[in-house]
């Protein structure tokens, strides 16, 4: 339906303005009537409150889950770090032990060689020892 039903000799703008004015008046009355009806009726706030409290409870539950999760995550992370550190320390100790064992073996080997050298030098007959000393003194400096 059109609101611009033009009367004879009436300008279209005038008809438009009148229709607009009428529509705005009706709109105003409608909003006022609606508002008065809603304003005077008792509010049913229980549903809202229940819904709100449910949301609050859900929010708290979610918050608790997140808090517990983050604490548990922190504890797990701490434990994991400790475990890694313990394994690293054990590996380092084993490495140091191995190095020490190698050093010990090397030292023993050197000692053995020195002992053999000394034993070999002592194998020169005692009658030859003065000659051997002379030869040692004659070596050019």
């Amino acid at each position, binding site marked *: *339906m*059109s*609101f*611009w039903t033009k009367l004879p000799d009436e300008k279209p703008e005038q008809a*438009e303005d009148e*229709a*607009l004015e*009428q*529509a*705005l008046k*009706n*709109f*105003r*009355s*409608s*909003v*006022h*009537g*609606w*508002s*008065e*009806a*809603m*304003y005077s009726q008792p*509010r049913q706030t229980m549903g*809202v409150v229940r819904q709100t409290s449910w949301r609050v409870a859900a929010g708290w539950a979610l918050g608790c889950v997140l808090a517990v999760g983050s604490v548990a995550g922190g504890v797990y992370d701490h434990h994991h770090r400790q475990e890694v550190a313990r394994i690293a320390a054990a590996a380092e100790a084993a490495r140091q032990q191995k190095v020490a064992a190698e050093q010990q073996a090397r030292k023993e080997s050197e000692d053995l060689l020195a002992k053999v050298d000394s034993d070999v030098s002592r194998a020169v007959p005692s009658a030859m020892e003065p000659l051997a000393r002379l030869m040692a003194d004659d070596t050019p400096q």
Partner: protein
Amino acid sequence: MEAAAQEFSSVVQAHRPQIFRFLLASTRDVDLAETLTQECFLKAHRNWDRFRGESSAMTWLMRIAINLEKDHWRNRRLQFWRHTRTNSVDLDEAGEWLPSGERSAEQKMLAREQVQHVWNAVERLSARQRTVFLLRFVEDQELNEIALATGLSEGTVKAHLSRALGKVRAELRGKP
């Protein structure tokens, strides 16, 4: 202290229905309008001693209501993960309300259709245009009062009003 409380109480009684009506028309949500009205008067009560009377109490309250509504929609946009359904009544339902005057059935139908068209146009207005339009044509406020309530200049109010009326006019013409 007692006098101030009495004065505030009379302000609440005088202006509460109007604030509720404006918020209802803005949001089309009865519960939300009620909640925002309560918040508005709570805020007004907290700041009542700062009210200097430079504008009327109504204009001051309307300004608070407009800001609360703005904050509400801003917060809703930010809380996009929340339940997004609103309790807004649809436009058909909002347009059903008409005062029971002495009208013929045809007049009532025509009036209902006009109201429906205006609601359709209001739905398409920007937030600022809607506020200005409702203050002017539902609350019967003068341009200077609207300017004070919205914090806009009178020229800007006029411009918004003109654009809003243009859209209502187009909707009534059937060319939105």
